[in-house]
Every structure is written in structure tokens, then in C-alpha cells.
């Protein structure tokens, strides 16, 4: 009985202790409402961004895989010209271990068809299927369609709506072999394979009558077959594809039109940009969490210094250090939990916006699911970080003795040195007083310094990303391995390419003309897209990041992907097969690029001539200056049309291929900039408001002796300038020097080994000046608060 009473007494005491701690924590929150609110907003924004980023990173692969399953899309496809088909191909796929279903279907193949996509013209390979064929793999899954039927209807992937700018019923023209084929958009379908323009091939579907009509109109060379397969484990799709080409590499002719796609490869290309954007969001969320932690550290230190007498009183009346410490921890954990839970709830609202970006980039309708794991990680990460920092910052409460605290507390200022004495220092009075204030608040200014550095870096990083991906795309396009010429012309086989090259070079507004072919070769048994030119030093995109491009006829450069596949590097010899001839080449360089899944090599013209002595080349890259691409194409067609197979507007192609990134990167840039502005405003608001409260008497005295409100406002604003200037300078310099290395790390999983984004110093400077002006303006506006307070009240309240 007595033990029961004793234990209930103890539990009541414990409960009483908890209530006291809660009361103390709530009192602290009530005392600093605006600071609590600012911190709450930071944590909310951090949790929101972190959760979006984590949900996307953790769900995107599952999303893509379940879409493939839901749509019953193939995990691997092998496409070929009808003439190249052999029955053993289908048998191999059907009997391949793990293949649960396979299907062979006819299709129409258009090699480099042109059509409008977004605001420009896209040249790409097109595969057209018969929409009315009964198929079990990749059935037509229209998500939007017209109610009326027309014989000119065409069904196109959903990306044509999200990214291509098309609506149901719109007119759609495909130009192929100089002939235009007119259609009406009859519906949009979802597909994971060939649904976007980032794989170099897109698929359309035509109703049977139109399909047959088109097949009749085109030559038999356009007839093709697709072997599709579904595996029980889709991660094996790359192995299936590679094994297929290994199995038949002897029988497949080098220049045969046969190529494959696997779901893993498509997934990694499709999700690349999405993952990159999500990673930027996570990185930025971590920056804001760091900002919040710095604010917490500052607030804890301040509350101990300012409230040391209160702490003394609490200790004197019997509160233990642990209770006081717990109240501080509880205060910040409460804010962190509220902020992160509400931030996570809000992230589900904002995910619809990010979901539309995902739809734009993937051509698939994003369906949001509940990401419990991401949510828990976000809450746990934010709360744990807050707990650790609060604990470390507040730990010194334990060392405060009640008597010492009551007798005036901790010495908060160091008065041993009169910094910037007015009688000796040079400069205006207000400037000198501002500098005094800066130096007197060193700890607080260190906090602002770190925050400004982080925010400036994030802003420069986003601005550089935006400039290079959405504005001047040269460096971004370089990553793909595209040579930044303006137009390329394909020459008929019987034409003397050297003579035509010199003729085109003589044309008005032509800056330069290069021979640059892309052919298929086999390197140590692997089918590789191989560039051929006579002068690599005349090209403007050097994709080799280690070693150099070939100079002599026995040299070759290979991409790091090929290097990994064949396990060879610089200094090794590889066997190159072309047109049934084989020769050995010395690897002189390793290149990087994203196109063609990175399966690229480069030979000199003399090099390829070792394999085919009469090889002359067939593609001329034309670099223009002072003329539009369209006008040049018109001129070259008029003058040399008889010698040409076709022309391609490279700029428009690039514009079309990269337009999907523009909106996404712009959205992320806007988010980063908006949050930068928000954090700068809130941090300065928080600091200046606290400063005015702390120095109320000082400002009152200064007003009493004749300082005007404007003079005091300028003093406050100027006192923050040194720290803001230092912050933007360091942050700007870090952004200037480290944006490329950081981006390279972020993109390394996509095969980027070296990155050389353009960083305009004037743009960086403008951004830094913008943040500086914002800081000054906010300081002035927040310190306007002084105006409303009378001198009398400033001193006496």
C-alpha cells in the first residue's frame, strides 16, 4: 500500500516536473513570438522542400516501373529494318531466361523525320505503329482522345501535350524525305518507351487505313519490325539487350539498321533531370535547415545571455539545470515538429506542381502516392538536427550558478577595447557608429555571414544552371556531345564532298564548314556510334575529358561508357570493324556525352579509310554568322539542292530537345530565388527586431541627443553592410568557382565527368549586388520600426 502511494507520489512529482518544463517552454515561445514564427517558417520551408525532393527521389523509379507495368509496356525492344530480320532473333528473345512474354510487330520507320515540337522543329527518328493491331505488349492507352473520327487522325505520346504544345484536334505535319504528311491529333497516349524526345526516337500510332496508306506511299526501306519483350525482372532488360547483340554480332552487319532500347536505360535517361531537380531541392532544403540551426544557436545563446537573471531566479527557486535545459529543448523541438509536420502536409499540395514538371519531363501522368518513408526521414532529420544543436548550444546553462546569475549574469560584452574610437578613426560619424555596432555584435554577424554565403551560393548556382540549361544552352548541349554547328547537310553518295565543302564555305555568312559523320562501327564487338572528321581541332565541342581526340590514322577516342564495356583505356589497342574490314586502333582519349547512351567513339577520316579506302564522308556541319538557319537552308537548297540528301537545322533541333528542361529549371530557379529573398528578409527582420528591442534605450538616448530616425535607420542598415558584403563576396566567389564541380558531382551518375557551364562574372556580380541591395533595403524597412517609437518611450519602456 505504502509503496503504491510512494510510486504515485513520484509519478505526480514527475508529471509536475513535466508540466513545469512545458510551462517554461511555452513562456519562452510566447515571449518571442516573431522569432518563433520566423524559425517556424524556415523549418516549414526546409521540411517542405526536403520532403518533395525525397519523395521524388524515392518514388520516381517505382513510379516509372509501375507505369511500365500498368501500361504493359515492353522492358526491351529490338528494332530493325524488315530486310534485316531473321527468325532466330525472335526465338532468342522468346527463349531468353526470364522473358515472360514477347511479341513481334510490324512498324513504319522514318529515319530523321521532321515535325514541330514546342516552339521549334524537331528532327528525330520516328516509329509508327498500326493502332488497330491487337497487341498484348504496349497496347494503345489513350488518355485523351477526340470523340469524332477522321481518316487523318494520328495518336501521339502525352509529351506532345505537356511539352510539344499540341492539343486534341491540332494540325500535325510530319516531313519525311522532302514530303509532308498531314494529320490531325486524334489522341494522346501514355508510354514509357519512346514517349519523349530524349531517346532519339519517338513513336506514333495511326489507325489501320492511314497506316496502310502511309506504308504504301513509303518505300520498302521504311518497313520495319519490332521485337518486344517483358521480363519477370525488368532490371535484366539491359543484359537482355546486350546479350542479344553479343549473340548476333557476327551476323548483324555493321551498317544494318538494327538497334535496341531497354527500360532501365530509358528510365535512367527519363529520370535524370527529374532526379537532378529533386537533388537541388534537397540540397537547398539542407541549406535552409543549416540556416535554421544557426538561428537556433544564436537564439539559445541570446536567451541565455539576456535571461541569465531569470535562469538564476529559476535555479534559486528550485528548478534543476536539467529542467531549464529541457524547457529550451522542448521549445525548439516543438517548433521543429510543428514546422516539419505542416511543411510535409503542404508539400503534398505543392507536389501537384512538381508532378506537372515530372509529367513534362517524362510524358507520363504523375500520380502522387503517400511517401511515409520520405515523410519520416524529413521529420527525423530536421528534428534530430534541431535537438543536437539546441542541446549543444544550451548546455552551458548547467554551468551557471544561481548566485552568479543573479548578480548580473554572464559578461555579454567585451569592453576592454574601444573599437573604432571616434576621435581617431576616419570617416563620417554615422558610418563609424555603424561599424562600432557591427563589431559589437560579432557573434550575430557571423550567423548572418554564414547564411548570406549559403544563400548567395545557392542563388548563383541556380542562376548559372538556369542560364546554361534554359538561356544560352551551349555548355548544356555540349554535355550531350552535340557539335554546336548551326546546320548540317547530308550529301548524296556520288558527290565530291571536298568540292562541295569548299563551295559551301564560300557562301555568304558561312563562318566554317566541317566534315563530321556519325557512322556505326563495332569496337571489340560492341556497336558504337562513331564520329568521323579530318580535323578534330576545328570542332567547337571537345568531348574528350582525358587524353585527346585522334590525330593520326591509327588513333581513336572512346567514351567512358565504351571504355567500361570493353575494359580498355588510353594506351590500349581496340579492334574496329566497319564494312567487313577490321583494323587496330590506339586509344588516345576518353570522352563523355549523354547521347546514344554514351556509346560513342571518334576516328579520323584517314582512320576510317583504313577500313574503307574510298570513304569520303557524307555530312557537312555548317557554322553560320549573320544569317538565320532557315534562310541559309533555303539558299543551300537553291544552289546545291541536287547534291543534297537533306538538311537539318541543328539549333532548332537542340531547342526542341531541350525545351522540356527550360520550364523545369526555371521553376527550380524561381523557388531558390524566392526562398533566398524570404530567408534574407526573415533573418534580417529577426535580427534587427531583436537588436532594436535590446538597444531600445541606446536608440532612445541617441534620439534624445538629436539623432533623427533616418540617421539611426541608416546606421542600422550600414552596420549590416560589411557582413552582407563579405557574405555575398564569399558566396559569389564560391558560386563562381564551385558551381561546375558541384554540378559535375550531381550529374556524375548520368555519365558527366567534366562540366564546363558558362559562368558570367557580370551576372554573378549583378546577383550579388541584388542580394546586397535587398539586404540594405530590408534593413532600412525593418528599422523603420524606430520611427513609431517616441524618444520617451524608447528610454522608459
Amino acid at each position, binding site marked *: 500500500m505504502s509503496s503504491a502511494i510512494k510510486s504515485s507520489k513520484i509519478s505526480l512529482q514527475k508529471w509536475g516536473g513535466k508540466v513545469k518544463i512545458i510551462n517554461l517552454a511555452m513562456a519562452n515561445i510566447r515571449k518571442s513570438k516573431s522569432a518563433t514564427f520566423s524559425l517556424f517558417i524556415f523549418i516549414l520551408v526546409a521540411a517542405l522542400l526536403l520532403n518533395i525532393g525525397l519523395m521524388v527521389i524515392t518514388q520516381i523509379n517505382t513510379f516509372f516501373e509501375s507505369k511500365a507495368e500498368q501500361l504493359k509496356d515492353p522492358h526491351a525492344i529490338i528494332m530493325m529494318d524488315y530486310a534485316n530480320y531473321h527468325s532466330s532473333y525472335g526465338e532468342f528473345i522468346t527463349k531468353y531466361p526470364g522473358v515472360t512474354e514477347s511479341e513481334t510487330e510490324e512498324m513504319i520507320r522514318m529515319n530523321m523525320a521532321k515535325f514541330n515540337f514546342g516552339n521549334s522543329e524537331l528532327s528525330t527518328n520516328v516509329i509508327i505503329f498500326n493502332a488497330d493491331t491487337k497487341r498484348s505488349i504496349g497496347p494503345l492507352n489513350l488518355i485523351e482522345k477526340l470523340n469524332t473520327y477522321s481518316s487523318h487522325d494520328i495518336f501521339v505520346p502525352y509529351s506532345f501535350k505537356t511539352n510539344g504544345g499540341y492539343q486534341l484536334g491540332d494540325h500535325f505535319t510530319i516531313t519525311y524525305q522532302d514530303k509532308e504528311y498531314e494529320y490531325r491529333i486524334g489522341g494522346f497516349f501514355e508510354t514509357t518507351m519512346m514517349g519523349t524526345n530524349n531517346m532519339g526516337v519517338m513513336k506514333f500510332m495511326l489507325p489501320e487505313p492511314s497506316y496502310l496508306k502511309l506504308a504504301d506511299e513509303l518505300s520498302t526501306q521504311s518497313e520495319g519490325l519490332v521485337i518486344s519483350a517483358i521480363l519477370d525482372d525488368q532490371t535484366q532488360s539491359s543484359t537482355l539487350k546486350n546479350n542479344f547483340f553479343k549473340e548476333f554480332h557476327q551476323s548483324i552487319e555493321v551498317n544494318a539498321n538494327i538497334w535496341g532500347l531497354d527500360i532501365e536505360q530509358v528510365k535512367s535517361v527519363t529520370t535524370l533531370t527529374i532526379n537532378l531537380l529533386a537533388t537541388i531541392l534537397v540540397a537547398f532544403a539542407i541549406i535552409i535547415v543549416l540556416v535554421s540551426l544557426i538561428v537556433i544557436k544564436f537564439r539559445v545563446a541570446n536567451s541565455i545571455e539576456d535571461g541569465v537573471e531569470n535562469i538564476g531566479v529559476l535555479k534559486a527557486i528550485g528548478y534543476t539545470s536539467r529542467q531549464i535545459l529541457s524547457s529550451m529543448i522542448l521549445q525548439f523541438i516543438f517548433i521543429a515538429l510543428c514546422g516539419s509536420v505542416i511543411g510535409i502536409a503542404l508539400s503534398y499540395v505543392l507536389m501537384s506542381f512538381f508532378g506537372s514538371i515530372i509529367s513534362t519531363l517524362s510524358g507520363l501522368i504523375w500520380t502522387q502516392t503517400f511517401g511515409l518513408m520520405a515523410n519520416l526521414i524529413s521529420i527525423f532529420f530536421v528534428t534530430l538536427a534541431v535537438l543536437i544543436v539546441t542541446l549543444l548550444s544550451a548546455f552551458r546553462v548547467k554551468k551557471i550558478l544561481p548566485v552568479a546569475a543573479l548578480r548580473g549574469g554572464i559578461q555579454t*560584452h567585451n*569592453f576592454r577595447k*574601444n573599437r573604432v*574610437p*571616434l*576621435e581617431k578613426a576616419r570617416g563620417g*560619424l554615422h558610418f563609424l*557608429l555603424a561599424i*562600432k*555596432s557591427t563589431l*559589437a555584435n560579432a557573434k550575430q554577424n557571423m550567423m548572418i555571414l554564414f547564411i548570406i554565403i549559403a544563400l548567395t551560393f545557392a542563388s548563383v548556382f541556380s542562376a548559372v544552371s538556369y542560364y546554361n540549361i534554359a538561356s544560352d544552352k551551349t555548355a548544356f548541349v555540349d554535355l550531350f556531345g552535340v557539335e554546336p554547328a548551326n546546320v548540317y547537310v547530308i550529301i548524296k553518295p556520288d558527290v565530291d564532298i571536298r568540292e562541295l565543302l569548299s563551295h559551301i564555305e564560300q557562301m555568304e555568312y558561312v563562318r566554317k564548314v566541317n566534315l563530321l559523320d556519325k557512322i556505326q562501327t563495332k569496337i571489340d564487338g560492341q556497336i558504337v556510334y562513331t564520329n568521323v572528321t579530318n580535323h578534330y581541332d576545328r570542332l567547337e565541342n571537345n568531348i574528350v575529358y582525358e587524353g585527346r581526340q585522334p590525330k593520326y590514322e591509327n588513333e581513336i577516342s572512346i567514351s567512358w561508357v565504351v571504355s567500361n564495356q570493353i575494359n580498355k583505356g588510353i594506351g590500349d589497342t581496340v579492334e574496329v570493324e566497319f564494312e567487313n574490314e577490321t583494323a587496330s586502333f590506339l586509344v588516345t582519349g576518353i570522352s563523355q556525352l549523354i547521347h546514344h547512351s554514351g556509346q560513342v567513339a571518334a576516328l579520323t577520316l584517314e582512320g576510317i579509310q583504313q577500313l574503307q579506302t574510298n570513304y569520303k564522308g557524307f555530312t557537312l556541319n555548317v557554322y553560320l554568322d549573320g544569317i538565320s538557319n532557315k534562310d541559309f537552308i533555303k539558299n543551300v537548297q537553291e544552289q546545291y539542292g541536287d547534291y543534297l540528301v537533306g538538311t537539318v537545322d541543328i539549333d532548332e533541333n537542340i531547342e526542341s530537345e531541350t525545351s522540356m528542361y527550360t520550364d523545369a529549371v526555371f521553376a527550380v530557379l524561381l523557388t531558390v530565388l524566392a526562398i533566398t529573398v524570404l530567408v534574407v528578409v526573415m533573418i534580417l527582420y529577426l535580427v534587427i527586431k531583436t537588436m532594436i528591442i535590446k538597444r531600445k*534605450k*541606446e536608440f*532612445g*538616448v*541617441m*534620439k*534624445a*541627443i*538629436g*539623432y*533623427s*530616425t*533616418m*540617421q539611426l535607420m541608416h546606421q542600422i542598415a550600414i552596420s549590416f553592410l560589411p557582413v552582407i558584403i563579405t557574405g555575398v563576396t564569399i558566396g559569389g566567389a564560391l558560386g563562381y568557382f564551385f558551381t561546375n564541380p558541384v554540378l559535375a558531382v550531381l550529374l556524375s551518375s548520368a555519365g558527366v565527368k567534366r562540366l564546363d557551364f558558362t559562368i558570367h562574372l557580370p551576372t554573378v556580380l549583378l546577383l550579388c549586388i541584388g542580394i546586397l541591395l535587398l539586404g540594405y533595403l530590408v534593413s532600412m524597412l525593418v528599422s523603420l520600426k524606430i*520611427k513609431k517609437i*517616441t*524618444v*520617451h518611450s524608447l*528610454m522608459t519602456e
Partner: protein
Amino acid sequence: MTKAIIKTEKLCKTFSSAGIQQHVLKNLDICLLEEDFTIIMGSSGSGKSTLLYAMSGMDKPTLGTIDFAGENLAKLNNDQLAVFRRNHCGFVFQQIYLLDNMSVLDNVLASGLLVNKNKREVEEKAKELLNQVGIGENAWSKFPTQLSGGEAQRVGIVRALINSPKLLFADEPTGALNSAASTSVLDVFTDVNRNGQSIVMVTHDMKTALRGNRILYLRDGVICGDLQLGTYSEKDNVERHKKLKNFLAEMGW
């Protein structure tokens, strides 16, 4: 004939809080003269400090006019008042209110350089005044927390005098000091007044009030007594004390 330095007409000050109005100053007509050392006395809550702050442009009256050096302070905005204060007023506070992140010299210069941009002139004057009030060179680089109360208040007086104000306002300047420190501070006030400096001081201490030549007694926001005490002299201190005591007794103090 001595000129008026401040003239108030129907000066009113009302504080409102939670719908309740408190009329602290009621239709005050006051005239303070140049070179006078005017003392404002009264019981707690009579409106002494409110009157001082209103006359000095630190607070705005609710109604009425304050004519100070040709300006009606009631019509000036906050920034104009700040400029007026720096050019024409000096302040000495009970809590002293030195800026504790500045040295003694910097505290004075921070006020002086506001009006006179010539650093050397201001610095020389500051040092001269500090010497005059007994703050030697060894204390100039000290911080306010390193001074005694009396020393700090004397620095406060120097800060108030650095711009040669037309009128020196003092709000119970010895209220927080011990007896010896009070005497040294009051001696400074007496000295500067003898040199022609007009002073108006709020106090509830008889010993302090004896330094003035005119005593105004405030009760419930109204001037109910005005005593001419004559220029301070230690010789007739007993006589002055008796006169003041009778006056205050008459006022019901």
C-alpha cells in the same frame, strides 16, 4: 531685461490607455527665462517629467503651443524635432543613459559631431569640458560601466553641453546618486549656470532645488506655485532653505 527662452500656451498632455484618458498636463502657460536655473517640483504623478519632455521636444503635446527659440515645437515632426534637439537642447537623465559600448570620449563626441563636423574642434571642446567637470584624461578611454555614478553623470552633463544648447534639461539628475556624488554633480550645474547656461531641472529633492533661482510647483498637471529664490550662494543657504521649506509647506508638499 532677460528674454524668455520657452513660452507655453494652454499646454495639455493626455495619455490614453484602454479607453481611459489621463490628463497629465492641463492648460499650462509657462514662461522660462534665459540664464535662469528653473526647478520643477511636485509630488509623484504631478506631471513634472511629462512637462520636461514636452518642453524639450522629446514628446509631443496633445494641445497647446510651445514656443522655443522662435519655433513652435508642437508643429514640428519627429525628424524636425530631432534636428531641433541636437541644435538647441541638452539632456541629463536620472539613469544617466551613457552609451555603454562607447568610451567616455566617444559618448561626448557622438553628440558633438552631430552638429559640428570639425572633429578637432569638437574633440578639443569635449576634453576641455571633461576637464572642467573633473573627468581627467585617464578616464576618457574608460567605458561607462567603469565609472562611478557621479563620474558617469558628469560625463552625461558634458555630453549635454557639448553643442552649447540654449537650454539644458535635467530630469532628477541626482536621483540615482549618493550624497557626495550628488553634490559634485550639482556643483557642475551651478557652475555652468553661473556661466550663463539656462537650465530647467526636475527634482523632488530640496537640497537639489536650492541650486535653482526659480521654483515652479506642479500639482495635478497645473502650476500652483512659482517661487523666486534668487541666484544660488552658499552664504545665504540657510535663508534660502527656510524660504523654500515655507513655500513647499504652503504647496502641501
